[in-house]
């Protein structure tokens, strides 16, 4: 049984402008020790999915179908107490804007102690030392002094390390990293990602890396799940995805991402934009309007084609073997 299993999850938001079908029939599985990349552009639903799994959705959200299980615990029907116990101890999350996620008026050392107090049995007199040890493990220079620092005194990169320290203080089984390095310098990004990967390895922790940066996902993930407009469109081991993408959207996304030797003229532009998810008449395949391979039967409910560990949801995938 996988550590985290999401099956056929659908979620909608009721807003003044209509009901937004934010997620539809989304399935995801993560095993212990695996690093899975959840890739998609803005509006694809990746953050919504992670919040929904942890019971952190907006009040206007409603889950209309599906299940989510973590280590056997039913996440969607659990009471707040169970979820609160899980969060921080078994499942941790780090966010995009580290400064916004830290309490600006409390010293960071105390914030780490809060986590230790809530989820571990560390004695009060030992907590300060434990917190400083956490900081040192994150390679934060001068941890004694930083224990007493406030978030505004630290750079973005250091704040992110503190947030990771908070997230890993209790050695969780699963770390959800939602755009952890967006907005950080590329050298800082490399340091942060290397740190996360080292910890993941040493703690045998599963990681869900949510990002819009395909290059980042390729460099650090075992497996990649591609989302578009609230659907999972493709999922495969990393290298397989990049060399043999089946879904037209994945191909276009890869084609639009500049890497080492590409020239500007080689890049592909993905035409069109996301469909309006409030429409009542959304087509079954939400990519069909932008797809140059669209056929008449693309308005049928999406199939689930599986070849080993390569999943694609498309009526007309790119590869004769699967059609």
């Amino acid at each position, binding site marked *: 049984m996988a550590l985290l299993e999401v099956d056929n999850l659908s979620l909608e938001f009721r*807003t*003044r*402008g209509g009901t*937004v079908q934010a997620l539809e029939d989304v399935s995801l599985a993560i095993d212990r020790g695996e690093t899975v990349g959840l890739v998609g552009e803005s509006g694809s639903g990746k953050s919504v999915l992670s919040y929904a799994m942890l019971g952190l959705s907006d009040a*206007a959200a409603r889950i209309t179908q599906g299940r989510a299980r973590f280590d056997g615990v039913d996440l969607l029907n659990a009471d707040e107490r169970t979820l609160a116990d899980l969060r921080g101890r078994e499942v941790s999350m780090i966010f995009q804007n580290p400064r916004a996620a830290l309490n600006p008026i409390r010293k960071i050392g105390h914030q780490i102690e809060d986590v230790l107090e809530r989820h571990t049995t560390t004695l009060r007199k030992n907590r300060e030392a434990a917190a400083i040890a956490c900081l040192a493990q994150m390679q934060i220079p001068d941890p004694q002094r930083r224990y007493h620092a406030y978030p505004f005194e630290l750079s973005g990169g250091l704040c992110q390390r503190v947030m990771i320290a908070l997230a890993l203080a209790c050695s969780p089984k699963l770390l959800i990293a939602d755009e952890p390095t967006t907005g950080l310098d590329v050298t800082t990004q490399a340091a942060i990602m290397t740190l996360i990967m080292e910890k993941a390895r040493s703690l045998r922790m599963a990681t869900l890396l949510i990002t819009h940066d395909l290059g980042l996902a390729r460099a650090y993930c075992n497996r990649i799940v591609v989302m578009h407009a609230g659907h999972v469109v493709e999922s495969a081991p990393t290298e397989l995805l990049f060399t043999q993408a089946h879904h037209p959207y994945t191909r276009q996304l890869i084609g639009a991402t500049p890497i080492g030797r590409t020239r500007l003229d080689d890049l592909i532009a993905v035409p069109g*934009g996301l469909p309006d998810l409030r429409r009542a008449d959304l087509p079954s395949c939400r990519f069909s309007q932008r797809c140059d391979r669209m056929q008449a039967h693309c308005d049928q409910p999406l199939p689930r084609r599986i070849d080993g560990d390569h999943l694609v949801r498309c009526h007309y995938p790119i590869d004769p073997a699967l059609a």
Partner: protein
Amino acid sequence: MTEMTLWGHARATASDNPFTLLAVFMFAGFLVIAVIGPSIAPYGPLASNASQALTGPSAQHWFGTDSLGRDIFSRVLVATRIDFSIALSAVGFSFIVGGFLGAVAGFWGGRIERIIMRLCDMVMSFPLFVLAMGIVAALGNSVFNIILATAIVNLPFYIRVACTEVNVRREAGFIEAARLSGNSDWRILFHHLIPNALPPMMVQVSLNMGWAILNAAGLSFIGLGVSPPEAEWGILVAEGATYIISGEWWVALFPGAVLMLAVFTFNLLGDGLRDLIDPRRRT
């Protein structure tokens, strides 16, 4: 990519909070009365009839009559125009002059800001009503002076709000872009900053109007400003105050109730305006 229209959003705001809708209707009602009041009043506001003095509410006189036999209902209707004019003019003046001064202070900062802020402090160091009294007493009793006093007393508020709003937006990207597009400092102030800084202040305008009416009524009540026999809500209440003890409650109650209703309307309207303007982009 189009968001909801302003009308659609207004409708939604009103449906969210039924009080807002109520406030809009009441405001519209008051406005209509202010315009056509004198024409629809059943009796002239100054028409006295000694034989009818101090009669209670009845079919001929809905709000009763006062000590000179004048129909209170007619007087209240006619007074609406004066009170509304005072409120609109005073607040309008404060808004425009205060907004401009505040914007200038917020944009250039430095010594200009310090001078303008100290002027604000000077005005604010007085209890506002006392200051208004002082101004009217010094300049003489007239509607214009009530308007002036109310406007001056209200200036610091608008100056400070405008200063802050402009200060916040001064560093915005579109201001820098405006410089690159060839805008001189004054053009930036008038074409870019003020149009963006003013709408949040509009919410305060409505709340202010309620206060302005109260201020004018208060001044008239103590004998400054509008003088009898002109009809103004404050004066009507003042005239009725002496009769409460002797049992003719209607002389003071009806004008007072209408006054209260007007202020209430403006406050509700202010709340609704705030909802309308603030989360314009909220789903």
